[in-house]
């Protein structure tokens, strides 16, 4: 029999909530870093700078098409061979950032492409430089268009942090495993609670994205 009462003791719930805290911490730091790096890469790829854009494009496509789990392994077990040995949480943040930056770069690029080319041409003919036109005219419109895609990428990032449990990052999934590891009768209650915690965070974000999208339209 599954022991729901004991599984949901305050000590266990608090332990899971501490895991959720780390999950959110890793997700927020990674998404902020990826947003900056991804924006730069996306704009470079869009801008058709000779050679540079092509190379950036290949890097983006290659990393986007690899499993995140592989990147986590590579960062945690592969990088020490180059003399760089990150701790578990920084390793998770690094792996997430590398992967998410490429995903966000693609979102940014398609967001910019969705802005009418006439906007850029008009700004340039008003005497703005390419960078000014990008910064003041094109990007604000592009960012508005990609809010839904950004939020759903953030949601998948939160879900993907669970993969970091394999390098023993103390996030929600890892803490869940610790709790049900004590007693096989805790398995179902703990899974239900973990699923609920992930669900609440992710679903709230998806509602928020719908609300923003609705308000902008």
């Amino acid at each position, binding site marked *: 029999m599954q022991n729901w009462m004991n599984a949901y003791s305050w000590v266990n719930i608090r332990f899971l909530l501490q895991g959720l805290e780390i999950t959110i911490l890793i997700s927020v730091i990674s998404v902020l870093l990826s947003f900056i790096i991804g924006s730069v890469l996306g704009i470079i790829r869009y801008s058709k700078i000779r050679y540079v854009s092509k190379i950036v494009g290949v890097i983006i496509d290659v990393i986007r098409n*690899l499993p995140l789990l592989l990147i986590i392994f590579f960062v945690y077990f592969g990088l020490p061979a180059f003399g760089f040995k990150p701790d578990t949480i920084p390793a998770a943040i690094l792996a997430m950032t590398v992967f998410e930056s490429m995903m966000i770069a693609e979102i940014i690029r398609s967001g910019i492409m969705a802005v009418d080319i006439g906007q850029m041409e008009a700004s340039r003919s008003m005497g703005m430089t390419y960078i000014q036109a990008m910064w003041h005219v094109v990007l604000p419109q592009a960012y508005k268009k990609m809010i839904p895609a950004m939020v759903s990428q953030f949601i998948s990032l939160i879900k993907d942090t669970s993969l970091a449990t394999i390098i023993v990052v103390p996030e929600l999934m890892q803490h869940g495993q610790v709790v049900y590891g004590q007693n096989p009768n805790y398995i179902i209650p703990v899974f239900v609670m973990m699923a609920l915690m992930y669900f609440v965070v992710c679903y709230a974000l*998806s509602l928020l994205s719908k609300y923003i999208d609705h308000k902008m339209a």
Partner: protein
Amino acid sequence: MINLLTHNWNSFITGFGWTVLSSVLALFFSLIIGSLVAILEVLPNKFFRIIGKIYVEIFRNIPLLVITMFFYLVIPLYVVKINGFTAGTIGLTIYTSAFIAETVRAGINSVDIGQMEAARSQGMTFWQAMRYIVLPQAFKLVIPPLGNQFVNLVKNSSVLAFVAGFDLMYQGNAIASQTFDTVNTYLIVGLFYLIITLPISYYMQYLERKLA
């Protein structure tokens, strides 16, 4: 790197095979389940629509790993003993089916409502109209997003490594821990994944541009 590849060729190829098998099986079943759920979501009956919506929202907002581990640990407890490959493929199927349902539903909704009305007024039942008129048009629209789902599915199949599912990632870990050559092993594993994912994702980009 070449040495590592030739020495462990059998392991890599076996892992590659299991990864492809798991992805194809999960794609097949999640296409069926996803389409059924998508149809539930567009039925006139409100009760079915809510059921479909709940299915999609639940499995879209829970990590794949949680779903997979749940099946891996709970099914043997109460139903039958299953291996990691089966549990992993079930988890992949359920997770992916929620995304496919969302994609197919968007496809159905983008088919002009007049198509359904015209088919119904010709004397077709709702199911006939769905099967012969609406779904074929919807599927044409959703081929590029479905292709991208398949790419995600192949990448996601790496969670099989958590449940000893014999897949590429699992074999890669085994080789890495035997040879201590983590960098080259993971690079080779990455190449094997790219063999499947890159061509599909480029082809889908091409299709998207052609259809747009």
